[in-house]
């Protein structure tokens, strides 16, 4: 993190949710601001310039998507959505509207912190300007296009590398199918998600220990793919918080 203390703005009408979010974020070294309505949240976002916004979708005065759109009209601050119902369509819509990622309630704090860190890392990327992305045993040099797995170089086809590159620039964050298809293929092939599925299969063969049980390049059903920052089992993912940086 570039700053000693990142400011996170929590926009959620449930006091109990805000309470545990505050505890979790403060323990992780964040300064916390709270807002219990969309109006308050937008005001706080404007005047306090937070580094990260956690936005609940079900607010009493305005729908989360509307808040997101207004926020995006003047700010690039990373936004992570909290949603109750896991509707893939809605997730995709929100990601398109400019959300950086989402978590579905009920969620563990570790999951949210991992997403937050990833979103912040991407937000401050230009300042750190480190061309090497690491994801568990994998390291991707975005400049030299060198991909190392357990410190050993692996060779990827042009499209495999392209896929990995896009995921690496969003490491820890979800990337939608649409985005991947548009950036990797051209013409009619852009609409064929089957190509993407098979390409992912091929890439997994090369980077995953067990391609049938992927731990690095994971699927977000109905939404897209995510390159994890580190190797985690799903159980650990729920439990342990990453160390405060």
């Amino acid at each position, binding site marked *: 993190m570039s700053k000693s203390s990142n400011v996170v703005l929590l926009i959620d009408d449930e006091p109990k949710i805000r309470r545990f979010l505050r505890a979790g974020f403060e323990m992780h070294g964040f300064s916390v601001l709270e807002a219990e309505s969309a109006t308050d949240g937008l005001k706080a976002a404007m005047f306090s310039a937070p580094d990260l916004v956690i936005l609940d979708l079900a607010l009493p005065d305005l729908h989360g998507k509307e808040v997101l759109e207004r926020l995006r009209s003047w700010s690039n601050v990373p936004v992570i959505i909290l949603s109750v119902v896991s509707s893939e369509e809605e997730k995709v819509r929100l990601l398109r509207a400019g959300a950086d990622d989402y978590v579905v309630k009920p969620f563990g704090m570790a999951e949210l912190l991992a997403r937050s860190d990833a979103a912040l890392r991407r937000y401050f990327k230009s300042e750190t300007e480190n061309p090497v992305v690491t994801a568990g045993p994998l390291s991707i040099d975005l400049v030299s296009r060198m991909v190392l797995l357990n410190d050993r170089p692996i060779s990827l086809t042009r499209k495999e590398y392209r896929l990995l590159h896009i995921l690496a620039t969003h490491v820890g964050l979800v990337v939608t199918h649409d985005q991947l298809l548009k950036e990797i293929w051209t013409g009619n092939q852009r609409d064929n998600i089957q190509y993407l599925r098979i390409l992912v299969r*091929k890439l997994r063969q090369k980077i995953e220990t067990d391609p049938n049980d992927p731990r690095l390049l994971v699927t977000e059903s109905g939404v897209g793919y995510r390159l994890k920052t580190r190797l985690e089992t799903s159980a650990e993912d729920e439990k342990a918080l990453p160390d405060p940086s």
Partner: protein
Amino acid sequence: MVGVVSAVLFWLDQATAVDLVPIAYLLPVVIAATQWGIWPATVASIASVAAADFLFFPPIYSFELDNPHEVIDLLLFLVVALVSSNLASRLRQEAERLRRREQEMQHLYEFSRRLAACFSVADLISAIQNYLSYALGQQALFLAAKSDGHLELSDSGPLPPAVHQSVASMVANGDMTSCNIVDEATYHCWVLEAVRSQTAVLGVVAVNIGDGTHEALESRKHRVKDILEETSLTFQRLDLARAMEDARLHLQAQLLQDAFHGMLAHELYSPLAAIRGSASVLDSIPMIQSDDRTRSLVEAISDQAAHLGGFIHNILNATRVTAGGISPRLEWADPRDVVKAAITARGRRLTAHKLVVAFSENLPLINVDSGLVEEAFGQLLENAAKYSPSGSTISIDARAEHGSVVLSIADQGVGITPDERRHLGRRSFRSQRHQATIPGAGLGFWIASTFVKTNGGTIDISSPGRGKGTTACITLPGSCVEASELADLSDE
């Protein structure tokens, strides 16, 4: 009356009287016929002829006749009087019959109105009994059929032992044709008739039709039959009405249930999110982590919250199904991803079992709503874990079969009996033998099969029998393009 007519005619002068005689004497005949029937009318006819002969035809005050054509006149009059009395009395009978019929109809109408207000068998019984007693003016008893095949006498009067015996034999033989019994103590005749609706025999009516001539008894028996026929029509209508009412109530209950589920899920999710989130924050505190007791407590909170979350999730899914709100968003998906996601989502509930996962090479893609199939697969996985002992193996397998993709889950659990298999897929079905031992709401398989169906697939459950494990297979149409072929195309 004949006398009155005679006196009036006698008072008129002779010539006029003789002319009026045939017409005037018809009056008492017709009146007698319409008022009292054929026999009084016949008597009146003969009396009229006698009076006319005696009083008006010469020689007067004698029954002898001088003029032969007066004999013919009188004979003709007699014929006309008899014929018209016959006609008039028939008219009277007809009118009487109509009046009675109208009364019966009125009774029946009232009866069916009473039937319509009946909400229980007891109401029905008393309505039928009252009606029969009232319409026939005789004692009528209803013996209601019970579900165990016995007949129960309603408490409105004693039944002669002979009648009781023959009712018992009717039931014993299952022979519901009507019969007559004579009660030897009173010499009253009883008629036994079965009362049925479209679907079932409701009971037996025993009617005391009294004593009397064979004809009288026959006619009363016919009336009983007629009335019961009418009532059975009413019963048929009642059956239909009851079925409609049941359906309406059922629908209302369903709607209420759905609304309840929707609200429940929403109201429970928020606190649950706070519990689970708070537990996860606690879990990261070093002080709690370092103490085994506090750590296990926090773990218990997390586990239970996850369990509750899964339960609410199921209810939400069920609500989606009944609300008709599933419109699958089809997208090409990798079956491996679907299986993996389902296993990950149910991770906590599968920890007690050994999972063996096998995918065949070059699995075709499937065009499905991966969220729904994931749910369905997860539900089947959960069932496999629930109905098999801890530590046993659950084998998960994904393979291609004739252009389809088959995802199968095989457990080493309680298995399924052929009888249970028939009920599978019904909402809220749970087998008797698990109800006390394994918690659940019977929603899992129902949700799974609905979700798979909306994706154009099928679920097949097979089991070699009780205690021998169960295999659940989801079959989904696969992509017709070979995976290897796609691989080349995708990376050009």
